[in-house]
Every structure is written in C-alpha cells, then in structure tokens.
C-alpha cells in the first residue's frame, strides 16, 4: 500500500476510534446506570441542566420574577 494510502487508513482508524469513544460516552449516559442525587432528581423532575437557550428566557425567568417580587418586598 502506498504511503498516502497508509496515511489515509490511519486517519480513518482515528476517526473511527473517536466516533467509538463519543458513542460509548453517549450510550453510557443514555442507558447506563445513573448515580443518585442531583442527576437522579433532574431525571425525575425533567430538569434541564444544559442551558442551551439561556435560562433567563426559559422557566428560570419565572423563578426570577417570583424571586424579585419576594426580594423587593423584604425590609432591607
């Protein structure tokens, strides 16, 4: 096999290794056992700990509104 062919083969092998790692990580997370505590609670209550769309405009905004009202009513 030519040098270019071997180099190409190595690259594909590295790509497959990387894809395997990502797949394993994903499968471990998706179907593996989940440790208790915060993660379990997130699952039970559908809490999203990945704020892709900035939480300010998601459900957190509501918490913020309620909290601001409470804070504003407190004696300083």
């Amino acid at each position, binding site marked *: 096999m030519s040098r270019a062919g071997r180099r190409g083969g190595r690259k594909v092998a590295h790509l497959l290794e990387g894809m395997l790692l990502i797949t394993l990580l994903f499968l471990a997370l998706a*179907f593996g056992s989940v440790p208790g*505590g915060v993660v379990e609670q997130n*699952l039970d209550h559908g809490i999203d700990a990945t*704020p892709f769309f900035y939480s300010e405009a998601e459900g957190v905004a509501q918490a*913020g509104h309620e909290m601001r009202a409470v804070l504003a009513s*407190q004696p300083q």
Partner: protein
Amino acid sequence: MNQGTSKSPLLHSEDWWAVWIGFAALLAATTGLIQTVPKLHRWTSNPLDMFQATGGADQGTILLPLLFTALLLGLVFALAVRVLGGRAGQFLPAFAVIFLLSVISYGLSRQVQVQAYGLEYAVWALAFGLLISNTVGVPEWLKAGARSELYIKTGLVLLGAEILFGHILDIGGPGLFVAWFVTPVVILFIYNLGVRYLKIGSKPLIITIAAATSVCGVSAAIATAAASRAKKEELTLAVGLSLIFTVLMMIIMPYAIRAVGMDTLVGAAWIGGTIDSTGAVIAAGAFLGQEAEKVAAVVKMIQNILIGVVAFAVAVYWCARVDRDPCAAKPSAKEIWIRFPKFIVGFVAASLLFSFVLMPLLGSETVENGILKQMSVPLRGWLFCMAFVSIGLESNFRDMASQMSGGKPFLLYVVGQSFNLILTLLAAYLAFGGILFARLNL
C-alpha cells in the same frame, strides 16, 4: 494593505457585519416579521423526536422551520462573506454542513439523560469539530463555512438584548451583594494570579478563564475571549475547564451543603454565585428545595448581567493597555476607538435598547416571552453552536496541548474557583444569613 481604495469599515469589517446582522434579526423579531426560531425538543430514546413537538402550543414537526432558518441564515451570512471578500458560492455548501453538525450537537444535548448530567451543546459541538479536524482533517471546501468569529460576534449582539438592566432596579440587596461584590474581586484575583504568579504567557487566556469562572461559564468565556481577541484554542480550553467543573460542582455542592447542615438559602446563594452554568445552578438549587432553586436562579441571573460590563471593560482595557506598544505614548481616545472591537458596541447598544426603551415601551411579556424567548435566544443559541463546531474544525490537539503550558491554566482555574467558593460563601452568609440584610421570609 489598502492601496488608495477607501473601503468603509462599516461595510467591510466583520465586527460591523455582526452588528448589522444582529440588529436586523432583533428588528425582525420586534416588528413581528420573524416570530419564532425553532428549538429542538427533548427526547429519550428516539433521536427523531427532537424534531417533533409532543405537547404544548407548538405541536407538529419543526423540520420545515428549521430548514427555513438554515436557508435564511446561510443567505445572510453568504452576503456578509461576499462583501467581506469571500466567495458566497463556496460558503453556502460548507455552511449547510456546519449547520447540520450543529443540529446533531444540539440534538445530543437535548437527550434527557445528557441534560440531567448537564453536558451542554458546547461539549458535543467541540467534540464533533475536533474529531473531524484531528482525524480525517477538514476538507478545503468545508473551511469556507467555518466562520467562528462572525457567528460568535453576531450571537453576542443578540446576547446583549438578553442582558436586561431593568432587572437590577427591582431586585433586593442580598442577591446583588453576592453576585456583584464577589465577581469583580474574583476576576482581578484570577487575572493577577495568572499574570504575576503563574506567569501564563497569554493574557487573553487568563482573562477568559477568569470570566468563565466568575461570571457564567460558556457565555462569559465567549464574550471575553472575543473582547480580548483570544485564540480559538484558548477559548476551547477555558470552556472545557468550565464545562467539566460545572458538572462536578452541580453534583457535589448540594451534597456538601446538606452534609454540613448549612442554611438552605445561604447554600442556594453560594451555588448561584459559584457554579458557572445557569442550567446547572437551577439543577443544584432544586436539589435543596423550591425556594433554594429560586434564590440560586436569581443570584445567577444578576451575575449574568455582568457579562456585558465585563466584556466592555475587557475590550477597553485591552485596547488601552494590553495591545498597545509599551514604548509608545498613551493611546488617544481615537486610537482606542479604532482598535476597539465594534461588535461590543452592538452588544451594549442592544442591552441598553432592550432594557431602557423596549421593556418600558412594549412590556415584559412581549419582550421576554415574545421577542427574546421565541426568536432572539434560540437564534443566538444556533449561532453559538455553529461557532463551537467551527472552532472544533479550526483547532488541533497539538495547539491545544501547547496552551496547557505545564498545567498552569488548570491550576489557575482550580485556585481561582477555590477562591471564588470561599469568597462567595462568605458573601452568601453575610447577605442571606441575616447578618447584613434582614433574613428572607420565603
């Protein structure tokens, strides 16, 4: 070099294009021309569910709106690339692939278990980009679409609209004290630690890590890296450190608070002031109870408002002090302006416009639940996701390893975060423990 042809920077600089595109999007949202930008939905076992809304008002598939979003974004950015001197014909197919990789990355972060662990989109976007660039390599044609800086700067202009200063006005003292007293102190501490004691060569890397640690993780890192002109590998490193420690802190901190029997509200404020990502703050706060969740959320939200202030201050400091020739005289205001990253102007202008004009004019419901939630926020999310895919495609492990410089950035993050934890705990105790302010009655 400009050979006599006077090209207007307003049309021929990437910064200004980011401002124009960002404001065009905000104008389209404010006038109702574009009302929503699609978001992928949560899914459990079938990835295709991410395209299908199963409940609520927005039922049905989002495939068509998603394609329309990609097409519109592609055309707008192609126009920008064309005017900036690139080739629109080469850009468009590459953009399509980068958008597709963004859909896959964002889709992975919408899986319920992945969400529960707090592994956000940036992890997957960087992973896919790095995987391609460090294995088979990035084909020449695909590089045309990897305009990470243009996506980041445009996304930052949109982020500015989300930084609503009005929220500060009606908030009580305790949250402000925790969020705003600690953050500047921690930034200065980490910056001095990195420059003077650890002697890390790259100041942009130090300030990016400082902002990620003390303000709000990924968004703050993006804004500060852009303001200080950090390298892509430096931003990747800062974001990577922040993402890893966010997950660890989200899992460990609530346990620690319960284990030592700490006051729940003090613990919640501690969580809000220290965990980098807003989503992880909510998750950790919720573990302590509903009230704790709200306190943690509001402290984090007040802290998030500092993104704009920090990015602006860093941009000015870099132009006036860091980037200037040490032998030259003090730069004039005009020179500072010439070097100033102009998208920061758009970022601050969007924040001021939304905080002091549109919020009073249109009301919180229209601005927050309409313009921001439905259009600006998801669009900004897509732009940042594309930026991270592009950064991954443009980075290689060798350059990233060289940024580690003997583990110093890691040490900087760990020591800085430890300092942040101690100082925030003290501030949380003073503010929410009934010492400086009356105890909250929730």
